[in-house]
């Protein structure tokens, strides 16, 4: 049994967009936290968000000023809902919803209802968030709304190829997001033995909060906040659900399900396995030695190619 290429594509993009929205709320929240604690550093962090989220081009069309030069409220508006930003939170949630509607027949009623409510509540919530002070609560609520979709899906979806296409979207997007977040902090993460410095700590804290792991990390390696330890956690840990290794492991697993379902191993399965190899069974010190930035650039390029290969292998478009 196979499904429509358009259905596979719709599920993939629905879940990529859900993941992208979720990740954006975390990154914005972490940055907001820094800017509340240290205005100077906060400005730099907004710059790095714009770059790491791939929004630089849209920003330049939106404003002639640098992100660090405009009022925080304008930045927030840009990230949340400004029409100049086609990757705003509102836009990604809307796109997840549009894809969900396209694949309505491949979703359970509960999942479809969850995304309908989530999309409409998220839209009014984002519209009503005018004050900076409202933002933390808005972001937390948005994540809760997004989690409702995942929750309904987890308990009602058939574990068939439709499910696998959704999972591929989730984990390819997650790997991409984590790679971008780490990539924006390579300098801090590569530096040895600067633990304890306030500035470094702030950087580490932001990175960890961006991937919802500032608490979890404390339980790993006795919580020693060093660049390499954090890099190791975010890139190579198979326990950490937002790490590159974990994400690639899930991609490999789901492509494996598809290979079983269809009785053929596609080129994308091999690409994914190669990516998993690059991240797992590696000491992060090796990655740092060979140049973390270079490594992550390569990874991001590979993720992009993997996405394209999946869409070719499973006839998303033609």
């Amino acid at each position, binding site marked *: 049994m*196979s499904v*429509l290429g358009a259905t596979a594509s719709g599920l993939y993009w629905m879940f990529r967009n859900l993941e992208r929205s979720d990740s954006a709320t975390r990154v914005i929240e972490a940055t907001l936290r820094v800017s509340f604690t240290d205005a100077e550093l906060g400005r730099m962090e907004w710059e790095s968000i714009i770059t790491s989220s791939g929004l630089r081009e849209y920003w330049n069309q939106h404003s002639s000023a640098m992100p660090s030069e405009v009022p925080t409220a304008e930045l927030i508006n840009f990230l949340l809902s400004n029409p100049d930003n086609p990757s705003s939170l509102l836009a990604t949630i809307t796109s997840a919803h549009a894809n969900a*509607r396209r694949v309505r027949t491949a979703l359970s009623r509960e999942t479809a209802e969850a995304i309908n*409510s989530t999309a409409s509540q998220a839209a009014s919530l984002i519209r009503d968030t005018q004050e900076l002070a409202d933002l933390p609560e808005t972001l937390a609520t948005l994540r809760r709304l997004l989690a409702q979709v995942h929750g309904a899906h987890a308990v009602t979806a058939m574990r068939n190829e439709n499910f696998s296409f959704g999972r591929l979207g989730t984990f390819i997007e997650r790997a991409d997001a984590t790679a971008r977040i780490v990539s924006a902090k390579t300098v801090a993460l590569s530096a040895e033995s600067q633990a304890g410095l306030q500035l470094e700590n702030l950087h580490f804290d932001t990175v960890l909060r961006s991937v919802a792991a500032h608490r979890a990390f404390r339980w790993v390696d006795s919580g020693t906040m060093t660049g390499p330890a954090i890099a190791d956690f975010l890139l190579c840990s198979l326990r950490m659900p937002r790490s590159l290794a974990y994400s690639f492991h899930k991609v490999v697993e789901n492509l494996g399900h598809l290979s079983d379902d269809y009785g053929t191993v596609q080129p994308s399965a091999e690409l994914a396995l190669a990516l998993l190899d690059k991240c797992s069974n590696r000491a992060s010190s090796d990655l740092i030695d060979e140049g973390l930035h270079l490594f992550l650039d390569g990874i991001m390029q590979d993720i992009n190619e993997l996405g394209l290969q999946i869409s070719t292998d*499973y*006839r998303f478009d033609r």
Partner: protein
Amino acid sequence: MTEESSLFDEMLHPDGSTRRAYQALQNGFFDDSDLTLKKRAVEAETLFRRTGIVFNVYGDAEGQERLIPFDIVPRILDAAEWDVIERGVIQRIGALNQLVHDLYHDREIVAAGILPVPLLARNEAFLPQMIGVEPPGGIYSHIAGIDLVRTGADEFVVLEDNLRTPSGVSYMLENRETMLHLFPQLFEEAQVRRVHDYAQQLRRCLAASAPEGVEDPTICVLTPGIYNSAYFEHAFLADEMGVELVEGRDLQLHNGRIAMRTTTGFETVDVIYRRIDDSFLDPMTFLPESVVGVAGVMDVYRAGRVTLANAPGAGIADDKAVYSYVPDIIRFYCDEEPILSNVETWRCSEPDQLAWVLENLSELVVKEVHGSGGYGMLIGPTSSAAEVEAFRAKLIANPGGYIAQPTLALSTVPILTEAGLAPRHVDLRPFVLSSPGLTQVTPGGLTRVAMVEGSLVVNSSQGGGTKDTWVLQS
């Protein structure tokens, strides 16, 4: 305009006592306080919003999605009333399917002088591409909706036939689901006939209409996409039937058949329940600029290697100009008297009738021959003098494009308003499924209700609402 007091109230006798059918609501509905009922109405809206049963309004600048208002007071028909409706619409659809077949083949009805030649020759709903095509079982309109209004205790009148791509059946089904959710105890007492077999009946109807020799047909629903006003219904029906929902770009010509692009290759499709208009169906045959159709589908269809439901060209039978001839059409093909009557209709294409219409314009309802959805019509009695005059000019410029009918005294059913129950005008669209050898009508249908006091316009695009429609076992 008819006096309010002479209107037929479906719930109450003129003396104010409750008619027998509505006594089913005595316990568990009418004994609830207004406050409880209003709470239920709010719950209903939440349910609909969550389901995503929304529609887009054409011409609405923001393309905003809206909910069609749902009223929680059910509209109830007893078994005897339903019997007349059921027999009437089956007779009508049977005759109209025969009419379409005849018009694309021997045209006996034209030869017999019952339908005038110009009606056919100048009609854009008549598709020359369909001449001589033989659809399986001679069925053109597999899915039809007949719009009825009630004007008295035993008087159901056909307002309009819909043989192309009638919509609204998802409301029939979702309205019932909502009522079951809100008032489960009501259904324990009232013996209400089920509607939820519709999707499986539709699936069997489509399967039975597959091209000859196909044993286990692959069926799909073809939608123009998520921005179409009826998209919810397209997805809903595909899901309920357990068949793929496809867009034009998912289908293509493949080894002389129509196939859908799947994750592992192409899979042949045997029956397409298409929810796009004839003119967009195939850019090679009809509008070349259509991006929602399937190039080459008409050739495959004419070769008998795929079934399109409904058949292209079926619209010739629901044309409002043809409408006025339906009683004669029934007599011609069935050799029976029509069970359901027509609304008296003046054809503006005929000079003497046009003259009469122009004279009495402010008393009449005037409709475009090819229009639907309540767009582009004049309701004389509720229009201003300026609106009537503007319409007069349009009518004189293109008389053949219009028909006129008297303003009807539509029956009323109560709705729940801020001030409690109040009567509003309703119509009824039963849905008819036709496949070779079998015609079925789901007991119930879509009741549309004008939410505004005194209004006769029930179309959802014009602010009308819907109700659950009950047909009682006895």
